[in-house]
Every structure is written in structure tokens, then in C-alpha cells.
């Protein structure tokens, strides 16, 4: 039973991280129908920024809580700036171009960012400090759940709630929903669609950065390639849940997290990635619009 619980919570943690990334995919897709392949790179850049900030701050001798907060904030701001800029230089000029051109632009952006970090930093794995402290009350359950896992799940839940609030109740959220349904009409009602798209990229990048910091701290090492596989997995999760749907992205991420976790725990850990992609193929065959996605006729 303990083993089951451990796998369950491990899957929940994985799913939470996927969800943080998948949100960016699904929000951007919802609004401009683009699979932003550079999104995984944003997550990687978030982790790198946090590492740099944390190293500097540790060197400066700050206490742990201050380091976590400042490093996370730095990652959020820096990644959001990347997301904003990528949209402006790689996607906005192609707003009225065929969708395939924008997709290729996105893939190019992804490769560019990977290689840029590879050159600017290193191709080696870098150790990432354990930012999340030990919680005293978790000690008796340490064989089931690690503090960082608990922290990841709680943070993700809080972010989901904030995001739901943003989209359901704020003015910019209403504008986002309107622009997602009909951009021209939204513009004719006085909504600055370019601003809405920028905000979407900023919010999506910020959540991906948080995911990057959390996973780096959880696993303890990062490298320039980490965004690729995580990005693809989150993409699978977004498609599984129904791309364009925010609850779908979360649901898809959790399902993917649990399946991976149970598969590796009970069957084999060698085929973890293969299994995730087999899953994608099966979804695309049997339910191309995803679990919560709208059917396209």
C-alpha cells in the first residue's frame, strides 16, 4: 500500500509539473492556434535563471527563504520576458501567414534557444541546490513523500486557482476568452488583441518558469536539453486533455503523470518515454480532440 501511495504521489508531482507547462501550450493554442514548440525552452530558461540567481544569492549569504523567493521571482520575470519577446519577433510578424509557417518558426525558436543556452552556459549537467527545506511534520512519511513533492503539488494547486480566477473574473481574462473565440469581433469591441496575446504568452511563460524551478530543485540537476523532453510530454498532456482547454490541460497532465508513474513502478522504467508517446498515438487514433476538447467536424 505504501508503494502504491508513493507511486500515486510521485505521479501527482510529475503531473503537476506537466500541468504547469501544459497550461502555456493550451492557452497559446486557444488564442492563436499555434503549438508553441519553444515553450519547453522557456521552462529550461526558468530553471537556469533560478540556478544563477540562487548561486549569486547563496554567495551573498542570504537565508534560504529569501533565496527561494528571489530566485523564483527572477526566473518568472526573465522567462516572461523571453515569452513576450519570442512572440513579438517570431510569431507576430506571421500572424496572417499560414499556420505551418508559424509552426516552423516555433521549432526554429526552440532549437535556437537550446543552442544559445548550450553555448552561453554548458552542455554538462549542472547541480541545482535543494531550495525547498525539510518539513518537520513530514519526517514520519519520508518513505512516501518528499518535501519537494508536497511543495510542488501545493504550489501547482495555488497557481491553478489563481489562473482560474484570472480567466473567469478579471477584465483581461474576459478579453482572453473573447479573443480566443473570435479575434476580429473582439477587436471590434475595443479589445487590444495584441496586448491580450502578449499577456497570454507572459502568463504561460511565468507558469512554465515556476515549473522549471520546482523540478530543478526536486531532481537536483539541470541541463540545456531538459526543456525538450518535458515540453513534448506537456504537449502530449495538453493534447490528451484537449488542446485549448485549460481544465483539460490539467486533467491530461495528471493522467499522464500517474500512468507514467505506475508504469515505471509496476512494469518497467526503461520504456517510460516510449510509453508516454505510445499514449499520444493512441489518443490521436481514438480521441483526436482529447478528453475535454471540442469535437471538430
Amino acid at each position, binding site marked *: 500500500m505504501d508503494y502504491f501511495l508513493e507511486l500515486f504521489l510521485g505521479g501527482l508531482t510529475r503531473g503537476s509539473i506537466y500541468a504547469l507547462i501544459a497550461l502555456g501550450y493550451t492557452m497559446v493554442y486557444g488564442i492563436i492556434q499555434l503549438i508553441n514548440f519553444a515553450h519547453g525552452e522557456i521552462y529550461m530558461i526558468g530553471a537556469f535563471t533560478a540556478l544563477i540567481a540562487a548561486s549569486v544569492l547563496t554567495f551573498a549569504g542570504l537565508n534560504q527563504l529569501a533565496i527561494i523567493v528571489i530566485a523564483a521571482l527572477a526566473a518568472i520575470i526573465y522567462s516572461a520576458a523571453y515569452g513576450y519577446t519570442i512572440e513579438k519577433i517570431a510569431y507576430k510578424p506571421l500572424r496572417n501567414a499560414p499556420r505551418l509557417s508559424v509552426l516552423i518558426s516555433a521549432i526554429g525558436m526552440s532549437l535556437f534557444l537550446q543552442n544559445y543556452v548550450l553555448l552561453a552556459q554548458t552542455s554538462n549537467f549542472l547541480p541545482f541546490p535543494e531550495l525547498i527545506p525539510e518539513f518537520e511534520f513530514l519526517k514520519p512519511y519520508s518513505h512516501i513523500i518528499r518535501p519537494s513533492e508536497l511543495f510542488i503539488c501545493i504550489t501547482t494547486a495555488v497557481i491553478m486557482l489563481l489562473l482560474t480566477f484570472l480567466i473567469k473574473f478579471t477584465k483581461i481574462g474576459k478579453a482572453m*476568452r473573447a479573443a480566443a473565440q473570435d479575434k476580429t469581433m473582439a477587436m471590434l469591441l475595443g479589445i487590444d488583441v495584441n496586448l491580450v496575446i502578449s499577456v497570454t504568452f507572459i502568463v504561460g511563460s511565468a507558469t512554465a518558469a515556476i515549473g522549471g524551478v520546482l523540478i530543478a530543485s526536486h531532481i537536483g540537476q539541470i541541463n540545456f536539453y531538459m526543456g525538450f523532453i518535458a515540453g513534448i510530454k506537456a504537449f502530449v498532456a495538453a493534447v490528451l486533455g484537449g488542446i485549448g482547454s485549460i481544465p483539460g490541460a490539467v486533467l491530461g497532465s495528471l493522467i499522464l503523470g500517474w500512468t507514467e508513474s505506475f508504469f515505471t513502478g509496476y512494469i518497467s522504467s526503461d520504456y517510460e518515454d516510449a510509453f508516454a508517446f505510445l499514449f499520444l498515438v493512441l489518443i490521436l487514433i481514438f480521441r483526436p480532440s482529447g478528453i475535454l476538447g471540442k469535437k471538430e467536424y
Partner: protein
Amino acid sequence: MKPSKEKILEVKKLTMDFGGLRAIDSFDLDICDKEIVALIGPNGAGKTTFFNCITGIYKPASGDIVINKNGKKERINGVRPNLITEKGFARTFQNIRLFGNMTVLENVMIGRHCRSKSSVAGAILRNKASIQEEKDIVNFSYNILKKIGLQNSVNELANNLPYGDQRRLEIARALATEPFLLLLDEPAAGMNPNETAELADLIKRIRDEEGISILLIEHDMKLVMKLSELIFVVDYGKKIAQGTPEEIKVNPNVIKAYLGEETNA
């Protein structure tokens, strides 16, 4: 309320090309304050293209679109649609373009977007100003829905409304932006005679009570003749006639190009 002679929109020599096709050819049109103007013509004559030009969806090839508000003239060629809406144009479409997954009230509230200020921070902190603004937006939107006669379905999804109500909701949403000129693209399309008569009433009321000028594209000649004070007739992108309903009815050019053999229009 009779139209005054003050012009609020002057379009001069407007030309729009799509590749080699001249969709609008040197078109002139003026609208006076509180006037109901109709733009008619056969299918494909360039009426909707004209709407798209003056609302900023298309950038015209040449010509001037000048709005005149409070004695200030401003050329709006190629200005982005959301900014033109801010300046006071609102429009509806031939085919219904509501936000189907939102409620009736939310659809109208979206129309208030450009007239409200509240920020994300305000929405999270729930400070007094943003709560008050939210309340004002809801009240304003509700009042519009009441005027339009949709107050009993505020919380329904727009998709679930009957067809005639969806058409009226589009007008309500356009009114929420507080326009001085309302552009209606075939508002009576697909309506039965009863609904059309109600629509005519509604359009007249919008002009009389709100003092909003109206430019409409319409194929229902009965509605056009009943409502409009001035009619422009366009064919192949060119203006072929302009005048009061009485003048248009007997204009030989119009009969030839548009009404054909129909004499009872």
C-alpha cells in the same frame, strides 16, 4: 428626433483593391448626426467590404475616412479596429458572431472593455474602485439588455438563445461600447416578418432614445424604405445612386442594376 445637418462621418473617394479586383471604387458617403442611412446593392457589390474598411479590418488603398466628433475632425484610415471602436463606431455582422460559450450578460460586458479601466491587481485585491466599476459594468450591461428586451435571459449561454434574440444580443453588445455610429450588416437576415418589424422598431428607438446614428446594409427593401432617411446604392463598388427612399424607388439606374423587374419594392 430629426437628423441635424452636422456631418459625423465623411468618406471621400474611398478605394479598396483585392489584388486586381477593385472592390470599392472612389466611393463617397456622408452621414449626419442622428441619421439612419442605408447602403444597398446586389450581392457582391462591396457593401460589407465598405464596412470592413471603415471599421479598420481592411486598410483602404486610397481615399479618406474622416470622423467629426465634437467639432474635431480626425482621419481614421488604417487605424486598428479596437481604436476605432474606442472612437465610437460599433458594428454587427451578417453572420452571427457572438461569444457562444459566454452568457448573455458576459457578452454585453465584453463590450464595456474599452470603456473600463480596472486592472488585474484591482481584481485580485478587490479594492473599492474596482468593485464599484464591476458593479457599474454589470448595471450598465443589464440596462442595455432591458432596453433590448433580453433581461429575462441574462444568465443563459449566448449559443442557447433563439435566432432572433441572438441578433438582438449582437446589437446590445455593440451598444455597450457607447458608439455614436452603429453599423448594422444585414440585421434582418433570416428573420420572419414579425421579427423584422420588431427590429425596425428597435433600430428606430436606438436612434430616437440614444441619439445614435445608424448605417445599415440590408436586403429587405420594406425595412430599408421604412427606416432610412437616406439611401446609397452601390454596384460593382461604385455608387450608382443616392437619395431619399422616394427618389431611389423611381431611380432608373437602381431599377436596372438592382431591383430588376420587381416593381413592388
